Structures are given as structure tokens and as C-alpha cells.
């Protein structure tokens, strides 16, 4: 049976982890490579880096991080943030990323998704959808959640599947950082609409939220950041909890 995945996400800025695992025995708490290794040794099903480097001069720092991580972690590595073009994707894959997530560029020009999935295969193209509820529908936000495009998120999800996306990483902007749980309605609506796997993101504050994301949100995988970072929960604890709730996980 296919297992539901647990994916810890690390925010990386200028090559350093911004919100990291608060472990005292870490030699360098800001080193993304070392943190990714802790997660993969702890049983993470996949590792996600979100590059939030703002300045263009420092954008190349992520390539070095990906290259070093891929030599130490032998589970899938997904990298997103600031991916604009087929060339950006090519560079990240060559550095050792297994999948690349595309956000703003996919909204501005769906050809990027079409072209890159043809060139590299759907298996490595993840489209990241940042959505916020507005009255009775969800709208797509870009540029790290600053710009409202007015585009219907659920219709957009379908369009991305048709363009060749292999997976969708769906983040609720309303819930992100709140720790009150995923936007279950948004997750389940998108998951029912498309036939590709959906990764739920945004709002996890406890282990029950992970359970809800899979059971109610129908997500194939759950992504979380802060509950793992500050040592609140280990990946192992999360998996054992999901297992106790009857959710198939890799233990």
C-alpha cells in the first residue's frame, strides 16, 4: 500500500536556515545540509527547501546547499522559491534536486510548467499554489503571498494538472504560520478535482492537524515546518501518531 508522506520544510535564506531545529548538539544550527540530514535520518519521507533569499546577488547560494545536501541525503529533495524559468529548473536538478516547485512563474506563464514537464518529466515538476479565501472561493496569491491575482485556485489546480504538473503543493495563506491547522476545505476540494497527488501545507500546529490533512483534506502528503523545527515533535513521533490513527506511513 502506498504510504502517506511526511515532508519537513526548511526555509533557507542566503544559504542559511531561517527557522531551524532547536537542537543543542547541532554544530551549526543554521546549516541547511546538517538539518536536512537530521530529518532524513529521522525518517522524513522527503525534504523540502524553500529558498526565500530576497536579493538577486545571493540567489546562487541555494545551488550550493542543494548540491551538498544531495550528497548526504538519499531521500527525495524538493526545492522551491524564486524558480522562474526552465533554465532555473535545469540548474537545480543538475545540483541534485529531485523535484522543483514552481509558484509565481507558473501563474504568470503556464508554458513554463508545460515546457519543463516535457523536458524533465512530470515527476520532477511540483506546482506550488498559494491560496487565500475570498468570500466563497479561493484565490491565487503570488510573490510570496503579496499579490492577489484573483485567479480561482481550484480551477488553476486543474489547469496545472493538464499542463503536466506531477504534484501540487497547496498552501493556505490564511493558515500559514497560524498553527491552527490546514484549510481542510481547500485541500479536499483541490484533491477531489485533480488526479495527481496533493501535498497539504500551511497551518500545522499539532499532530492532529497532520491526521486531518490526510483523512479530511485527502492529501497524499503533509508538509510542515515549525512543529518539527523547535523540537516540539520529531518525524518519528509524527509517524507513530499517524500510524495509531490508522494512516499508512513508512515506519
Amino acid at each position, binding site marked *: 500500500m502506498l*504510504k502517506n508522506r511526511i515532508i519537513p520544510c526548511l526555509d533557507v535564506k542566503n544559504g542559511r536556515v531561517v527557522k531551524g531545529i532547536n537542537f543543542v548538539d547541532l554544530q551549526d544550527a543554521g546549516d541547511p545540509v546538517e538539518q536536512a540530514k537530521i530529518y532524513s535520518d529521522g525518517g522524513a*519521507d522527503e525534504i523540502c527547501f524553500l529558498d526565500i533569499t530576497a536579493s538577486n546577488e545571493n540567489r546562487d547560494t541555494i545551488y550550493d546547499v542543494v548540491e551538498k545536501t544531495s550528497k548526504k541525503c538519499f*531521500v*527525495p529533495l524538493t526545492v522551491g522559491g524564486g524558480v522562474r524559468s526552465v533554465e532555473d529548473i535545469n540548474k537545480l536538478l543538475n545540483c541534485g534536486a529531485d523535484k522543483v516547485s514552481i509558484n509565481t512563474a507558473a501563474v504568470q506563464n503556464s508554458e513554463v510548467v508545460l515546457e519543463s514537464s516535457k523536458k524533465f*518529466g512530470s*515527476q*520532477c515538476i511540483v506546482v506550488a499554489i498559494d491560496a487565500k479565501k475570498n468570500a466563497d472561493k479561493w484565490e491565487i496569491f503570488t510573490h510570496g503571498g503579496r499579490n492577489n491575482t484573483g485567479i480561482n485556485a481550484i480551477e488553476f489546480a486543474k489547469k496545472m494538472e493538464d499542463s503536466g504538473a506531477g504534484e501540487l503543493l497547496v498552501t493556505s495563506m490564511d493558515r500559514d504560520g497560524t498553527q491552527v491547522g490546514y484549510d481542510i476545505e481547500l485541500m479536499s476540494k483541490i484533491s477531489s478535482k485533480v488526479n*495527481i*497527488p496533493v501535498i497539504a501545507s500551511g497551518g500545522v500546529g499539532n499532530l492532529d492537524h497532520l491526521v486531518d490533512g490526510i483523512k479530511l483534506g485527502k492529501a497524499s502528503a503533509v508538509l510542515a515546518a515549525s512543529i518539527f523545527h523547535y523540537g516540539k515533535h520529531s518525524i518519528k513521533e509524527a509517524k507513530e501518531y499517524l500510524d495509531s490513527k490508522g494512516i499508512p506511513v*513508512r515506519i
Partner: protein
Amino acid sequence: MNVIIVDYNSGNISSVVNSFQEVAKDKVNIEVTSDLNKIKSSDKVVLPGQGSFKSCVDALNNISGLVDTLNEFAINNKKPLLGICVGLQMFADIGYEETETKGLAWIAGKVSKIDNQNGKFKLPHIGWNEIKIVKDSKILNGIENNPHMYFVHSYEFIPEDKNVISTTTDYSTNIVCSIEKENIFGTQFHPEKSDKVGLKIIKNFINL
């Protein structure tokens, strides 16, 4: 010993290279190339493959003499070869992804889309799934039954002779996960992304 990972522009092979280098350390020489003479003189060959069946077959054919060299290596000289993902699928006679495309025809069979049972099963089949060992295989030495392996694919290899199948997994149907036919090995899953068990399989292949 020399192990060649065939670089034929089949997409992203850096993870395959990293995992083989991790296992080989300094004891075994891992080389990434499409140089025909180097392939001929190597001890083992790894054939990765990402993207579609058609794009991989086209990429193989685009390098003049490569298919003949691989045939000589694996079929005539019977030296060990490991195909990964589409690398395994290309062993078949024919594939149906994008359009009907001829494969290497090393193992009789076809590559067809996984039956998603009207949307009941999401495709691609992405993630960790348990494999079931149905036959002993040298690359599975020391691996206990039902380990989890990492998959990313929408098409499956259906060999005519079921005796070549060494592991299967349950996703819509019993999907072929690995095969062994004499000196030819293949995995549908990605050993390079399957954590410790995956590295063990790579080690077994290197140590053949």
C-alpha cells in the same frame, strides 16, 4: 572495478551518481559517460532513465552506436547491467507512453499506463510503497521482505515471462518493481532515493 552510469541526456541523473559514489567510496571507480569504448571495457553498467519512455529511447538512439554497444555489453557479453525506472522499462519490446515506441527488446513484454480505476488511484504513483519479494534476486541479498521503496511513475513494465519478476507492489494492480534475468537487473523504484535499503541494493549490484 569500473562502473559506468550511462549519461545519455535522459534527464536528471545527479541523484543516481551521488548514491553510487556514496556506496562506492574510493573502492570502486564510478564514471558518468556515454563514451562507447569506456562502456565496452567497463565491468558494470547502470542505465538510468527519467521522463517518458519515448524521450529516453529517442535519447539513446541519438547517440550513435550506443544501443549496439549496450546490446553487446548486456546480451552478447552478458555483463551486469542495472536499469532504473525508465531504464528498466526500456528492456521491453514496446512502450505506449506518448506514442508506440520500440524498446531494447531484451525482455519480452510491454510498458503500459497503470490502470487508475477511474481516478481511484492517483497518477503518477509517487511516494513510498512496500515491495514484496516474490523471487530471490542477487541485488536483494540481505534485504528483508516488505521494505519501503520510493516510486515515481505512471507506466508499468509487464513482462511476458513472469519468472523474471523479483518484487511487486500493490498499486491498483500488482506492479512489477524489480526484475532479474541472468545478468540483467532492473528496478522500477528509485534505489538512489530509497534511503538505507536503496543504498543496500546499489551496494549489492556493485558487489556482484
